[in-house]
């Protein structure tokens, strides 16, 4: 049993804010004066019963309402993340080839809060995406311009857009609750402690205990999903089969920011400005050195002779 989540007085002032921003989209920030303790949410897939209390709690806290859906014959509801469902349970029925057992793998999908966030790297709007020193990656909808670049940058296909304003939405890790010392709404609502929340170190330690337990139960490949390709994440999974993350509804095995996005936001940006500048500079220099190409009086005379006959 993980110790119960604290429930401190919420009249206190916010525990972190703008002064703790370490990365800001399309802009640079001065290094913050202090380093917050990195936090993490640990989702233990082996303990999830698929009740969707986390989905409900998320909608409740964020004041979102999903449209009434249709039954698609599967447990997933809605079928995918939406601008109103910032987290969804993804259900997979997987037959373990070693034991022939049917395993019901239920993964709570949502923003992973990457240490190296692709969304932030791709975003062209200054300050629309920020990262705090505790690891939270957050969207500022007032600054979001709705271009959809964050979705191209994201290795996990997470951001979703509102229909009318076309603004990007995703899990905030309940940054507003965290600022008041409260745990994320999903973690608070989870009845089986499949979702626990604490510092990243605490979560890794807790994951170790869970992994040992799973290994003792025959899940030899149980392990922690904290992918190094994106610098680690502040939402981590305990997986029974950590060697095969893709069986969990396509969880990427080695997620990283796409090299196409790296080229687009890296060398293209600088080489592009340099190329345009070089062409402009060439024009200025050419004009200074060679001067204009002027029509001479002789040219006009020749033309007149051609058009009107010998003068």
């Amino acid at each position, binding site marked *: 049993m993980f110790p119960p989540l604290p429930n401190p007085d919420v009249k206190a002032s916010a525990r972190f804010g703008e002064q703790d921003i370490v990365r800001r989209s399309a802009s640079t920030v001065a290094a913050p004066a202090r380093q917050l303790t990195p936090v993490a949410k640990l989702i233990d897939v082996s303990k999830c019963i698929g009740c969707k209390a986390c989905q409900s709690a998320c909608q409740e806290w964020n004041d979102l309402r999903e449209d009434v859906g249709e039954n698609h014959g599967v447990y997933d509801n809605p079928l995918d993340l939406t601008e109103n469902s910032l987290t969804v349970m993804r259900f997979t029925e997987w037959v373990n080839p070693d034991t022939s057992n049917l395993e019901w793998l239920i993964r709570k999908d949502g923003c992973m809060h990457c240490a190296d966030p692709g969304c932030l790297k791709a975003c062209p709007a200054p300050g629309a995406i920020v990262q705090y020193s505790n690891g939270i990656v957050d969207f500022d909808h007032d600054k979001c311009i709705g271009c959809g670049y964050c979705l191209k940058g994201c290795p996990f296909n997470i951001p979703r857009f509102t229909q009318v304003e076309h603004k990007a939405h995703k899990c905030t890790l309940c940054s507003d609750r965290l600022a008041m010392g409260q745990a994320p709404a999903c973690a608070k609502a989870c009845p089986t402690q499949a979702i626990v929340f604490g510092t990243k170190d605490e979560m890794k330690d807790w994951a170790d205990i869970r992994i040992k337990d799973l290994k003792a139960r025959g899940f030899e490949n149980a392990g922690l999903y904290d992918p190094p390709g994106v610098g680690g994440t502040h939402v981590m999974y305990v997986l029974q089969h950590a060697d095969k993350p893709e069986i969990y509804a396509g969880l990427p095995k080695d997620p990283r920011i796409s090299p196409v996005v790296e080229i687009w936001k890296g060398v293209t940006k600088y080489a592009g400005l340099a190329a345009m500048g070089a062409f402009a500079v060439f024009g200025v220099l050419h004009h200074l050195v*060679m001067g204009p190409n002027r029509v001479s009086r002789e*040219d006009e005379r020749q033309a*007149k002779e051609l058009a009107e006959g010998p003068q």
Partner: protein
Amino acid sequence: MSAQAGRQPETEVVPGPAVHPGNPVTVDRYTAGARINHWITATCLVLLALSGLALFHPSLFFLTGLFGGGETTRILHPWIGVVLFVSFIGLFVRFWHLNLWRGADTTWIARLGKVLGNRDHEDPELVEIGKYNAGQKIVFWGMSILIIVLIASGFVIWDQYFSQYTSITQKRVAVLVHAIAAIIIICVWIVHVYAAIWVRGTIGAMTRGQVTGGWAWRHHRKWLKDLVTGRPSS
């Protein structure tokens, strides 16, 4: 003078005799329709470059202010692109025939040094130029190809209406292709604008529609001779 005879293959025909006696002689180069068509395209291209650059590099994000902020920039940019594409089709239909590559164009490129050195009029092989020289033809075809690449990749990343038709991987490639094509077309545009400034007497062709006879003699002698003699121009 039978300036209009035998010029049927041209799409961009100046009605009536194109060469006007006077001091200096003036020559009709662009019809009013062509000029309006050109300036609609030009305005769109400049607006697209400004709004596109604003979203391309953070140091240029301030350019969104010209369009009423980041969000309206994002909304307007693709629509301006559609207007440009339709407008450019008009230019393409008018001018493609006159921009077909000829043997003389290869010579012109081979002797680009003379052209850039303002010495092209001294070379007898570089003066017999039709309505367009090789440099202008490269700008024309460069613009044509890049505009197709830009509109195609642009639709792939126009998320508000078309996001469901392509995968994220395709969108990533499209956004990179769009950025690179935009950089190249801005470079082509710089060449186009600079050439019009460098070669004095050119801009009047796209404003009043006319150039002087001397300008035509110096830069497009074959075109001028064809207009005077009434031969089909190329």
